[in-house]
């Protein structure tokens, strides 16, 4: 089967999308961008490939009359088993490296007790990992191993730390080890893992159904997934590990991706980590005009990141807090350099945290609305993409300002909005595979 791949290397995350020949999304993958773009692109691609494989498996399950009714449940369970397996492999790597690090001369004085505590912590993490978990299946794929491991490790390290082996000593080892785990890509034997996962399900299924499952798994593994064309885009696209003719501007990719998600789209706003883009597209998703912020990162996603750091909050917490605001605070500057000072001044002046945050969100959106105006306004329909589209306070502010300036507009936000650029790139890959128009 032919697959067309789009990869979007963002400043914070790298996304990959697989399409089949009809333009249907087969699979998606995401990972955090790291200093090696090649590796980030590879990991996202591997993940998308795995998820495409599962999509193919689901198609095979649905095609089997005996299993069709249970296709979705089976797929979810197989994914859960698979992911657990994947996490355990990574955890194993983490353990190996952590013990190497625990032999470093730097920690020689506490080597013995340090290793002891590491063993306890890592055993506990492994046990947690093995425990069946329900209801988090969907979430799992979008969660990074690093984040999961970090939260588990630090929680357990806190319990285990004492005056001999301090919390900092343990975390020091973890930080070194996780970096190495992240920066090596290891081949996950997909076929074997899937077979193992299937084997775990069979006992509970009854003989005939179990046989069917094994057969379907084998059929789907026989399908050859041929990545015929890849197009790359994104913030790091100058250094994307692709040939020049395989790279498309992120502006074009966002336009086309948004059009694919919402065919009625005429205006797209993308607020990413490093830049904000206002894009107008025609009825075919072709960009007719665009504007983006200049070299200054004020008003981009990164600005909210600074604010979150300054308040010791997670960036996801900002929006919901801002939504509790009751009083209007006007903030004009979204200069990243002065973000901290601005915030402290206002807090000292007695303004409430939620009101200040609401004001900050409005300021970010005000800049975006100015950019929209310069690109040609907000047409019906209007699609909002990028990390900031997940922030409810930003969405509220945007809706309000767009309504004030342009009247009623349908505002689209896709749950997969983070993949918009990669989706556009994959659509370009599909087109490029079909007709080599860019050569014209």
């Amino acid at each position: 089967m032919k697959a067309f791949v789009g990869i979007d290397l963002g400043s914070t995350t790298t996304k990959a999308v697989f399409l089949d020949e009809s333009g249907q999304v087969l699979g998606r993958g995401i990972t955090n961008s790291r200093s090696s773009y090649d590796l980030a692109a590879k990991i996202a691609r591997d993940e998308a490939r795995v998820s495409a494989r599962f999509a193919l498996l689901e198609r095979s399950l649905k095609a089997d009359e005996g299993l069709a009714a249970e296709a979705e449940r089976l797929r979810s369970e197989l994914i859960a088993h698979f992911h657990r397996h994947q996490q355990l492999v990574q955890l194993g790597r983490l353990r190996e490296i952590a013990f190497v690090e625990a032999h470093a001369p730097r920690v020689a004085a506490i080597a013995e007790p340090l290793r002891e505590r590491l063993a306890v912590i890592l055993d506990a993490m492994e046990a947690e990992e093995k425990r069946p978990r329900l209801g988090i299946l969907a979430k799992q794929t979008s969660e990074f191993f690093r984040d999961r491991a970090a939260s588990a490790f630090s929680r357990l390290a806190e319990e285990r730390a004492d005056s001999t082996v301090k919390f900092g000593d343990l975390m020091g080892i973890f930080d070194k080890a996780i970096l190495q785990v992240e920066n090596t890509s290891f081949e996950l034997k997909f076929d074997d893992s899937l077979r193992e996962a299937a084997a775990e399900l069979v006992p509970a299924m009854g003989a005939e159904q179990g046989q069917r499952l094994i057969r379907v798994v084998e059929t789907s593994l026989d399908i050859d997934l041929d990545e015929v064309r890849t197009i790359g885009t994104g913030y790091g696209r100058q250094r994307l590990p692709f040939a020049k003719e395989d790279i498309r501007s992120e502006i074009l990719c966002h336009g086309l991706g948004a059009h694919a998600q919402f065919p009625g789209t005429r205006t797209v706003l993308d607020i990413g980590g490093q830049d904000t883009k206002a894009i107008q597209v025609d009825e075919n998703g072709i960009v007719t005009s665009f504007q983006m912020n200049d070299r200054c990162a004020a008003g981009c996603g990164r600005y909210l990141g600074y604010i979150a750091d300054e308040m010791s909050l997670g960036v996801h917490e900002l929006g919901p807090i801002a939504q509790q605001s009751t009083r209007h605070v006007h903030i004009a500057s979204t200069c990243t350099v002065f973000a901290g000072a601005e915030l402290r001044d206002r807090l000292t002046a007695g303004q409430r945290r939620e009101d200040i945050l609401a004001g900050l969100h409005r300021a970010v959106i005000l800049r975006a609305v100015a950019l929209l105006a310069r690109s040609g306004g907000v047409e019906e329909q209007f699609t909002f993409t990028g990390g900031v589209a997940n922030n409810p306070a930003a969405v509220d502010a945007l809706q309000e300002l767009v309504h004030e300036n342009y009247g009623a507009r349908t505002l689209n936000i896709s749950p997969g909005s983070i993949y918009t650029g990669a989706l556009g790139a994959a659509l370009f890959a599909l087109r490029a595979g079909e007709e080599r128009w860019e050569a014209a």
Partner: protein
Amino acid sequence: MSGKAVKEQSMVKQKELIQDHYHELSRAPETGRKVIYTFVPGNLTELFRAFDLLPVYPEINALQSAMRQKSTLFINEAERAGHAEDVCTYVKTDIGMLRRGNVGPSGEKLPPPDLLVLSYTGCFTFMKWFELLRQEYDCPVVMLHTPYQGDGKITPSMVRYMVEQMRTEVIPALEKVSGIKYDEDRLKEAMALSESAETDLVAVLESAKHRPSPIDGYFGGVYYIGPIFNAFRGTPEAAEYYRMLRGEVEERMAQGLGPVTPDGLLANEKFRLVVEGPPNWTSFREFWKMFHEEGAVVVASTYTKVGGLYDTGFRHDKEHPLESLAHYCMGCYTNNNLPQRIDLLERYARDYSADGLLVNSVKSCNSFSAGQLLMLREFEKRTGLPGGFIETDLVDARYFSAANVKNRIESYLQMITQKRAPSARAEA
């Protein structure tokens, strides 16, 4: 490369011209020649020559300082002296250069002015700039006010107003500083030479109508306009230079060659663009490269009309020397109103078979930047061609983000490609 040898002859000539000029300037204190400082838009070069005066153009010093990577130092110097961040960076580069010994682009010291001729064309900053220089040098200023073409035309009373200023203020001031009596015949002689150079320059710029274009009308264009915007309009050397240049360009055109870039011959013309706004000078070469490596050629630009708009038919006229100087000043591109500018852009797109209009909006200069977005939208509406927008500065390196500019240029060019794509056309 076949293009190289052809290019060099006129380039060498231009280099010589400019070097000789700076050399002469550096020797002015010994030779006793008098020096005036003046601006490029609306300059009266032929008139200065008629009084044996040597002109200095601070804007040209500023842009050349930037090309030699000196402007950051000079801007810092000026900011330390209290000039705010949002003051036009040409001004700050000039002030910084002055404070650091006034060493010009050739590495030789520039003489102080004996007179400042403030040709006030559209930009209020000009007035403040020379006010500052007057203070620094403690020298007289004479002002020539150029009325803005607010209604899009030059009326007889506007011409009279300017000629009157020349007769009653500028010429007496020039006589006084030079000790030479005004001789209209000398001026007429210079005018005839100007006219010949201008006709050749227009032929060079219009060669870009040809496919492939033998020149780049923006990045290459700024070299071609050098002598005529600088101190040489109305000299036999400039007339000779343009004759030579025209010959070279026509030869290239006959051979079907593309423009010569700093990185070699552009052999594969893929995009033909009209560009509005001045270039960035601090990263000039890198900026150009972002175009030529994509096969984008600028076929027409407005910046190359900032020191005189000749391709709409204007020529200096030796029969009416002062009147034609007045027309010249009022006709400079930034002295045209917005509808005139849009008409010009539209005409360029049509006459030069362009694929679109790219605006480079520079932070420093309101004479250019004000209204550019409106112009862009109107252009799109009238021509149906796509518009693009980038933001940089003239000579402040802090305002040139290479990644950002490259991203926008590439996106813009891909947008043009996409619009041309067969599937887009079929579906549309």
